[in-house]
């Protein structure tokens, strides 16, 4: 099993995508999609990537909930700033956040979260010093942003990718 499905989640995800794209759960499509997904999993194994260890499904769900609420809240906040345009006093700026997480998959997910949330843009991460440079649209309180990133996202991500 391990040999045939080196990345079971990837294979399952691809099969799910295949079925969604074809809008069917017919046996023929499950077999065909399964074959393609298995091949893709084997091709991935040939690239020898570092294997992600994803644990704690509850933490994954909690993170999804947190990100969803934050994305909705910041959508409204940034919409307000965008409507005010140039009349508004400029509060944007750069800041650095110290990041303790070293897992590259965790960092990749963190970058997606930060970019998907309007109002923060991931600029540069220095793996050596663990310093993350971001640009924040509404930078009134640097410490508040550090707390959000470290306590709301990073801690859960470190739990998920031990």
């Amino acid at each position, binding site marked *: 099993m391990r040999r045939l499905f080196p990345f079971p989640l990837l294979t399952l995800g691809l099969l799910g*995508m295949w079925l*969604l*794209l074809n*809008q069917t759960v017919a046996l023929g499509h499950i077999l065909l999609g399964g074959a393609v997904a298995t091949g893709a999993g084997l091709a991935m194994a040939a690239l020898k990537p570092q294997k992600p260890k994803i644990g704690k499904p509850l933490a994954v769900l909690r993170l999804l909930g947190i990100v969803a609420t934050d*994305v*909705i809240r910041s*959508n409204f906040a*940034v*919409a307000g*700033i*965008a*409507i005010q*345009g*140039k009349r508004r006093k*400029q509060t*944007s700026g*750069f800041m*650095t956040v110290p990041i303790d997480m070293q897992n590259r998959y965790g960092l990749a997910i963190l*970058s*997606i979260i*930060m*970019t*998907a*949330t*309007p*109002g*923060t*843009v*991931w*600029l*540069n991460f*220095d*793996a*050596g*010093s*663990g*310093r993350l*440079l971001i*640009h924040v*649209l509404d930078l009134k309180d640097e410490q508040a942003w550090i707390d959000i990133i470290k306590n709301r996202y990073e801690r859960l991500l470190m739990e998920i990718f031990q």
Partner: protein
Amino acid sequence: MIAPGDLPLWAAIIVGALTIGGAAFTLVGSFGLWRLRSFYDRVHTPTLGTSLGTVLIIVASMICFTVLESRVILQELLIFVFVSVTTPVTLMLLARAALYRDRAEGNASVPPADPQPILKAREAEPDA
């Protein structure tokens, strides 16, 4: 053949409201892109269209076609997955290119590059 009139009123109201909401967020995001001051400010606002704007419109589409075809249509979820995974790539590429250029031009409004990253990497992992 599916005609627009086949959609029941309650579904039409929900779908219409969601579509207009998503379009409004996208429009405000584009407005911000035009109105804000610096490049780094402007790069934030189009994210409205790629987050809530996209979500509202794909939810509207899912409801509309689920009701019209009387079966669950979920393929729009893939749009959401691909948009959320690919947006950071373009956004980071643009922002970092701007940062690189500003640093090269000696623009004082951007933070300088981290000094000697190689030396710092060794300090952080003495056993490596």
